[in-house]
Structure formats: C-alpha cells, structure tokens
C-alpha cells in the first residue's frame, strides 16, 4: 500500500522530466558554487596556518631587534650564557637563478621541542642537514622548481609551504652573506625561573609573544569574506530555483495528494513520503553539487592563489586537497537549503483539507498585503543600510551596509515593477497593449523571485565591475607615477653595488637608490624607504596630501612621508611626529597612495636613512635614462658586471608584470560574477517554465478572439524582455550604490585605501547584452512550447473537463 502510494507520488516526475531537471540543477548549482568557494577558503586558511607554524614559528615566543635591523651573534651568545633557552634564525630572500625563495636557516640542535614539528628525524637525516655542503628542505612543488637550478641536495617534505626552504643556519648565513647577523631568535615557552631579565641581558631586543592567528590570515580575511559573500549570493539564487520548482511540483500534485488521502493514506505518512522524496533529491543533487564545486574550486584556485600572492604576499598552493569536513558541510548545505525552500509547500500539504475542489494556484496570485509587507521590509532594510553607511565604522558594518542594500532593493523590486507596469497600462490606448501590460502584472508574483535573483546578480556585476574598472584606471595611472625610472637594477652583493654606484652616473641621467630597512613603527613591523632628492620624485610621486615644501623637508631629513594605509590605519596626520626605530623622531609631511601594499610604509630622505641605519642594504637602484637608450644600457650593465638579465629590469616589463598581477587579482571575481549571472538566468528559466504550465487558461481566450499562437509567443518574449529591462534599469542605481560602498567603505576598512569612483556605462551595455541573451535563452523553451501548442489543448480549456 505504502509502496504503491509512494510510486504514485513519484510518477509525477516521469511525466515532467524537465521539472525534475530544474529541481536537481537548482540544488546542484547552489551547492556547487557555495562549496566551491568554501573549498578555496579552506585551502587558503590551511596554508596560512601551515605557513605560520613552520615559517614564522608563531607557536613560539620570539625576540626581535628593536630597531628593525639584525641581531649580532654576540647578543645571542650572551642570552645562552645567561641561561636562556633560545635558538637563532637567519632568514631572507634568496635567488637560485630565476627562482626566488624564502630561505630559513635554523639550528636544529637548539630548536625548542615545543615548536611545530620540524621535518628532520633520525640521526642520519640530521647529519645530512647540518653537513657542511648543506641541504634544502622544501615542499614538493618547490622541489620541482629548484631541481635544475639549486646545486644543493633537496629533501622533500609535505609540511613546508611553497616557495620556502629550510636549511642549516650556517648554510643560510653563507648564502645570504650575513656574517653572523641573526634575523630573530625563537624562545622555548618554558624558561628557567631564575633568569636575569631580558632588559638587562639584551636591551636591544623586544619580545613578541606566540601569536594565535597568523598575520596573513587577518590580512586576507576581507578577501575571503568577499568570496564567501559571493558564494552565498549564488546559493540563495539557487534556492530560489528550488523553491519555485518544489512549489510547482506540490501544486500540480494536489489532486494526487487528495486521492491518496481519500484512499486512506494518513497525512503523517504522506508528509513522510514527501520528506523522503525531497531529501533523496537533495542528497543526490548535493553530491553532484559538491563534485562540481570541487571542479569549480580547482579551476578558480590558481587565480585565487595569484591574487593572494599579489595582494598580500600570501602563499597558497594552486592545487586543491580533499577535505572530508568540506564534503560534509557541502552536503549539509544542500539538504538544509532544500528543506528551507520546501518547508512552505510541505506546510500547505498538511493544512490542505481532503474535500475541496482544486483551487487556482494561490501562490501565483498576487497578494496585495504580502507585497506591501515585503516592500515595507525592503524599505526598512534600505533605511538601515543608509544610516549604517552614515554612522557605522568597521569592516563588519561595511558588509552589513552591503547586505542591507542588496536585500532591501531586492525586496522592493516587485513593488517597483508592479507600479511601473500599472503606469504603462494606464498610458496604453490599444486593447492589446493594455492586455499585454495587465497580463505581465499578473505574472509578476510567479516571476518575482527569479527577477529578484536577476537584480542581485546584475547589481553585483555592475557594482563589482565599477569597482574593478575604477581600480584599474587609478592603478594604471598610479603605476605610471610610481615606476618613473626607466631601469631597475639589483646588485648581487654590496661590493658589486659599490662598483655600480661608481659606474652608473657616467652612463645615465640620474641614479636613484632604492634602499629600505624594516623596523617597528607604532607597534607594527613596517618598511622604511630612503629616496634621493631628485626631480623624478618631485614630479611624479603620487602624493594625496601634504604640507608645503614636502620634498625639501624630506631631502633635509626633517620630514617623512607615510603611505595611505598608515595614514588611515593608524590615523597618522601630516604635521604629526612619529618615532622611527632607534628613537628617531620625524615630522610627517605628506601622504602618498600605495595600492596593492597590505602594510604601512614610510619614506625619508636617503641621507638621513643612511645616517640612522648605516647597515641598510644598498643593492637596488632606479636609473633615469632616455627611454630609447634603456635597452642599450641594460645590455651594457649585463656585459660590464656579468649580472643576470633578471637583475636588470626595464620599466615596461615591470609595468606589464604589475598589470598582469592586477588582472589576475580580479579574474576570480569576474568568474564568480559570471557564474552568479548564469544561476540567475537559470532561475528565470525555471520560473518561466513553471508559469508556462499554468498560462493556457489565461491565453486561450485571447487566442479564441483572433490572435495567432505565434503572436502570443512573440508577446511572451516581449513580456520577458520588458521585465528584464525594468530589472536591469533598477539594477543600475543599486549596482552603483554597491560600488560606492565597496570603494568608500569596504576597501578602506579592508585594504586601507580609498579610490575615486569612475563610471563606465559601456560596461553596463555589455553586461546588459549578456543578461539579454540569458533572458532570451531562458524564455526560448517555454515560448517554443506555446508557439506549437496543440489547439486541442487550448480548446480543452473551454470544455467542462476542468
């Protein structure tokens, strides 16, 4: 009996295969995009944690030089003698031919056991590691890149992040040419209680406690939040599809439900069957969704990895590993989402009396009060968003503004469309046009979910597109200012640098040293650059604020420039005095923009930099020459000094690289945008298909009065396009508001810089065209059905069989 009843319920899907496909695809798409994004996030987080524990040993407290320079071996020796349990580290960037890696030299003898497990075990491995020739411990991917260029034995370990290598401290000292200058000292968490205080043994060091979260994880939070927001948006849009598909399937089976119940199937078992049915669908499509999500993530991950490297210097592998918790979470989302979107239909089944004639579908009919309530909620959300944009601060409030703006406008959309259609109807004279508008309004309740989804997708596209284009324009202009020198040369060591300093002035118009050190400023580890007094800077440097005679004061060593991030992040104002490492107070005289840099930065006069930090590495130089002579000069330098070509870079190629990084940065966003739009298009298709099933009684009278099926089909297309156009028009202001929130609130909070907003109407046209194609595609199948509907089906509408 039960089995027969269940089969009767399921037989519905055999007659409506397209409906089944819609339902399954809806769940699949929603799950795929959501879990794809989650996979990327999980991969990135795992790699941050790995990098932090191994590279920075942030599980251990550390000692750092107060002035940001290095630590002499003597200081380390003093600590050991005083009884401190400490271990030295030398690290730095090193080039093996074209491959640049982070070299970390450790002393395995003294490394505290409490730290992250070090991938060396057993005495033979230990001997290999400390053996004079040296050994590099690297990740499998790095091993592949280093294989032919590093003339050292490699040992592969899965625990090491990409682009980094562990080696013995002696080897690192030799390769990095440090002569015993340590980068930092790690400490065992448990020290003897009777130790002399750090201040007396080594006053030049500061202590940094073990950090729980890696810096880079905090920096990239906003990026991952962005991705999550996109994934969630797509998920919600997908649920719209599921909602309308289950709604229709339940509606069409009312008669079956009633028959089954009058045949003695209890309400409880009917509900149970429906729940089993919908849950199995959710399982099957959830599984497909997670699999597809895996592929989406694999396709996007290289782009994301490039973005994270470009924006934050965070290293994330380009390949995805399988995580069971992520599979489970994806499945859970699929089931929960499906349950959420079918709970209303299930509820209606429970309340449905056995004996009433089949009613026309209630949910397709406009309920004026529901629309009013929805509009009210939308208006309140918009109001909240506006007041929060006005008064709020912080990244969370920025995202709340975004959410309120998007959801509020989506909720207001049906009322807006209804009013517009009413207006159009009132202005029409011809009977057919009046009917066209009125009939369009009748379809609105059934389409509004899909249209809301379309609005969200379009607004997200316009908003993010405007942000990226504004950013691109600003960034390119800024690159031109920032990369003013025609050639950039990096010497391999200080001797070579000295020879370059002698040789270069006779062969160029100007030589601009690019020297920097790192040090603690206002509690953060920041870069301090020195600049020469040169017209290149006076004419080109992208200042966004400053006092009179900025460059004179910098040249005199009296003033410093700070970047926008430091200005906004720490509230450092021009006129204020900040203290640079080594108790050096300077007045801030200006602020410059510094896009793409996650950290604060300070610029001082070159002479002052050298005076305060005599040990500053003097390896990098910008060279001004006649642009036409740049290539020649590069050749000369390479010949004269035997420098590898990669150490002499022309401005052009540097700009090209920067631009490539930039484009890569937003490739992922673009891909997600397109996917969201595709899901919205599919939602539109699902709704139109749903509606086309109940359209016949509405269209049959018009057909009987002398319209061809072909005309009706054309009008149906026009109707879809009219709704699409109205939604598109509504999406433009929403998208622009979104762009403004992104540029003026979220960016400032997340990255520390603000961008001028530029509007690109041509981009909207392109987006409009894409959305138009999606709209036409979505209506094609329903319309084809209508155009070829059997007249007998239309006639049956009028017969008393209904």
């Amino acid at each position, binding site marked *: 009996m039960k089995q027969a009843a269940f089969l009767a319920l399921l037989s519905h899907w055999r007659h409506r295969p397209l409906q089944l496909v819609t339902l399954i695809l809806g769940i699949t798409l929603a799950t795929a995009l959501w879990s794809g994004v989650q996979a990327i996030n999980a991969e990135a987080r795992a790699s941050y944690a790995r990098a932090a524990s191994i590279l920075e040993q942030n599980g251990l407290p550390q000692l750092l030089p107060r002035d940001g320079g290095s630590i002499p071996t003597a200081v380390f020796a003093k600590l050991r003698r005083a009884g401190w349990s400490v271990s030295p580290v030398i690290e730095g960037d090193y080039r093996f031919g074209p491959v640049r890696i982070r070299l970390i030299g450790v002393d395995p003898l003294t490394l505290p056991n409490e730290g992250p497990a070090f991938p060396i075990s057993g005495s033979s491995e230990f001997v290999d590691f400390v053996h004079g020739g040296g050994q590099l411990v690297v990740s499998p991917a790095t091993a592949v890149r280093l294989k032919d260029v590093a003339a050292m034995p490699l040992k592969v370990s899965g625990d090491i992040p990409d682009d980094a290598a562990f080696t013995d401290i002696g080897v690192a000292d030799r390769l990095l040419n440090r002569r015993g200058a340590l980068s930092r000292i790690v400490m065992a968490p448990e020290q003897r209680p009777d130790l002399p205080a750090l201040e007396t043994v080594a006053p030049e060091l500061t202590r940094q406690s073990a950090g729980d979260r890696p810096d880079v994880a905090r920096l990239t939070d906003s990026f991952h939040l962005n991705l999550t927001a996109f994934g969630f948006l797509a998920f919600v849009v997908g649920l719209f599809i599921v909602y309308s598909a289950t709604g229709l399937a339940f509606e069409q089976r009312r008669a079956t439900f009633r028959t089954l119940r009058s045949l003695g199937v209890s309400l409880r078992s009917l509900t149970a069957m429906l729940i089993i049915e919908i849950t199995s669908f959710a399982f099957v499509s959830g599984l497909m969704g997670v699999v597809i999500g895996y592929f989406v993530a694999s396709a996007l991950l290289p782009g994301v990895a490039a973005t994270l490297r470009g924006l934050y210097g965070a290293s994330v592998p380009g390949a995805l590993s399988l995580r069971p918790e992520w599979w489970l979470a994806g499945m859970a989302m699929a089931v929960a989402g499906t349950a959420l979107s079918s709970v209303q239909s299930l509820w209606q089944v429970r309340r449905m009396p056995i004996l009433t004639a089949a009613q026309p579908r209630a949910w397709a009919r406009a309920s004026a009060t529901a629309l009013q309530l929805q509009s009210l909620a939308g208006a309140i959300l918009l109001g909240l968003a506006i007041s929060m944009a006005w008064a709020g601060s912080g990244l969370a409030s920025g995202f709340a503004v975004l959410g309120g703006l998007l959801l509020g406008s989506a909720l207001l959309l049906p009322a807006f469309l209804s009013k517009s259609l009413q207006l159009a109807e009132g202005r029409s004279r011809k009977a057919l046009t009046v*009917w066209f508008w009125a009939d369009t309004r009748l379809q609105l309740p059934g389409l509004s979910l899909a249209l809301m989804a379309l609005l969200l997708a379009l607004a997200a596209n316009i908003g993010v597109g405007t942000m990226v284009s504004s950013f691109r324009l600003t960034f390119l202009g800024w690159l031109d200012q920032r990369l003013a020198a025609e050639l950039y040369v990096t010497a391999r060591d200080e001797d070579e640098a000295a020879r370059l300093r002698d040789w270069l002035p006779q062969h160029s118009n100007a030589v601009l040293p690019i020297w920097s050190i790192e040090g603690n400023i206002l509690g953060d580890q920041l870069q301090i650059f020195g600049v020469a007094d040169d017209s290149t800077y006076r004419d080109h440097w992208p200042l966004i604020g400053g006092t009179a005679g900025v460059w004179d004061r910098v040249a005199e060593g009296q003033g410093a420039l700070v970047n926008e991030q430091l200005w906004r992040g720490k509230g450092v104002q021009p006129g204020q005095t900040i203290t640079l490492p080594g108790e050096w107070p300077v007045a801030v005289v200006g602020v410059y923009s510094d896009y793409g840099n996650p950290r604060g930065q300070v610029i001082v006069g070159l002479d002052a930099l050298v005076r305060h930090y005599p040990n500053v590495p003097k390896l990098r130089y910008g060279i001004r020459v006649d642009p036409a002579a740049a290539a020649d000069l590069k050749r000369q330098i390479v010949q004269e000094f035997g420098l590898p070509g990669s150490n002499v870079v022309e401005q052009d190629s540097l700009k090209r690289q920067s631009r490539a990084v930039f484009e890569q940065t937003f490739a992922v966003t673009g891909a997600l945008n397109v996917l969201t739009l595709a899901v919205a298009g599919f939602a539109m298709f699902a709704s139109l298909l749903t509606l086309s099933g109940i359209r016949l009684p509405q269209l049959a009278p018009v057909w009987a009065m002398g319209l061809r*099926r072909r005309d009706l089909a054309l009008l149906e297309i026009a109707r879809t396009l009219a709704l699409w156009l109205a939604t598109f028009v509504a999406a433009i202001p929403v998208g622009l508001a979104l762009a403004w929130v992104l540029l003026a609130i979220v960016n400032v909070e997340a990255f520390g810089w603000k961008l001028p907003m530029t509007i690109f109407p041509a981009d909207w046209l392109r987006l409009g065209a894409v959305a138009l194609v999606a709209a036409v595609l979505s209506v094609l199948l329903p319309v084809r059905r209508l155009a070829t509907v059997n007249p007998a089906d239309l006639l049956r509408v009028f017969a008393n069989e209904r």
Partner: protein
Amino acid sequence: MTSMLLSLSKITKSYQTAEGPIQILKGIDLQLARTESVALTGESGSGKSTLLHLAGGLDRPDAGTIVVNGRDIGALDDSGRARYRRNEVGLVFQQFNLIPSLDVAANISFHAKLAGRFDPDWEHELMQQLGLSRLLARYPEQLSGGQQQRVAIGRTLAARPSLVLADEPTGNLDEATGDAVLDLMLSLSRSAGSALLLVTHSMRLADKLDRRVVLRGGRIVA
C-alpha cells in the same frame, strides 16, 4: 445560397485516440441565414463542441467546406483564421471566457477594439441591459458564474460579429439565471444583427430559438 451567412457541407472530423482514430463527424450539412438563431442539441460526446470549434475557425475539418460570408474558411492559413475569429465570429464558452488580468470594462471592450469596431454607445447600452454597470472595475475572479457569463456575452456582442457561436453558455448556471441570460443573449444578438448558433442540452431553451437541429451518429438528423 449566397444569402446564407454560414454554410457547412460534407464536414468530417476524426480524432486520434489510443484505440485508433474515431470519426466524430461523418458528413455534416448545416446552413444559417443572417440573423437566424439555431439551437444545436445532441447527446454528450456527439460532437457538438467539435462542430462549433470548426465553424469558429479554432480547428480544421478533415474534409468538407465551411463558407462564412461567401468565403471558404477551411482554405485559410493560421493567420487567416485568426483574422476570421477576430473580425467575423464571437465565441462564448461554458467557462474561462474572460481574461483574468483585465477588469470587466476592459474585458468587454477588448474584442471590439481588436476588431476595430469599438462603439461606446452600443457598449454602454449592452452594459445597461446586462446589468454590468456597477461591476466595471471588478476582476473576473471577483464575479459569480452568472456575472462572468454576462460579461462574456457582452464582450462578444460589443464586437458585433456577424456570427455568434455559443457552447452551453448557461451550462454552469441555475435554471432561472440561465433563462434570463439566454433571453438577454437572444434579444441583444438580434439588435446587434448577428446570427447565433447555440449548443444546449435544454429543450426548453432550444425552443426559444428560431430553429433546432440535432446531432446524432455524426450527422445532423433534424
């Protein structure tokens, strides 16, 4: 012959079913003069609706000719038949006659405007006679069955078609309401100058019309 408004000759029609084709109409000959009113009766399933649909240009016969106003509508293509429905016939069915998205006023003038014969005075008179004046701003779902049928009749007659085809227009109504609606329909179609072919099961109603024909075994027998 040419004085005839509608002239059906040797009409046959069959439907494909699971058990093979069944022939419903086996050679129908029927003629209607201008302004004549004819009742079409017959058992359920005898093919009355089918015949009406053929005459209305909603469907095509297998064979035979349908001449309306001297023109063979069987020879028309899809567009021609749509034009024919728009300009020359008016159809009233048992249900689903109205356009749900339009109010009563717009429903009534819809066909007349499509046919380009909108006449406000005539429409006003129709609304008065049909007692619809106070319902003009309502939507079909807010009307009773009898009210809906009166709106459908008003809409058909407002367009002044030369031929009105009605398929049990009062079938869903109680006897008293049905009588009243039919009386109105008869008198108004006379004022409109339309001929009327009406399908009904009721002998009593059939007797109100000029003539009665019976469909049996696929042929007109009386």
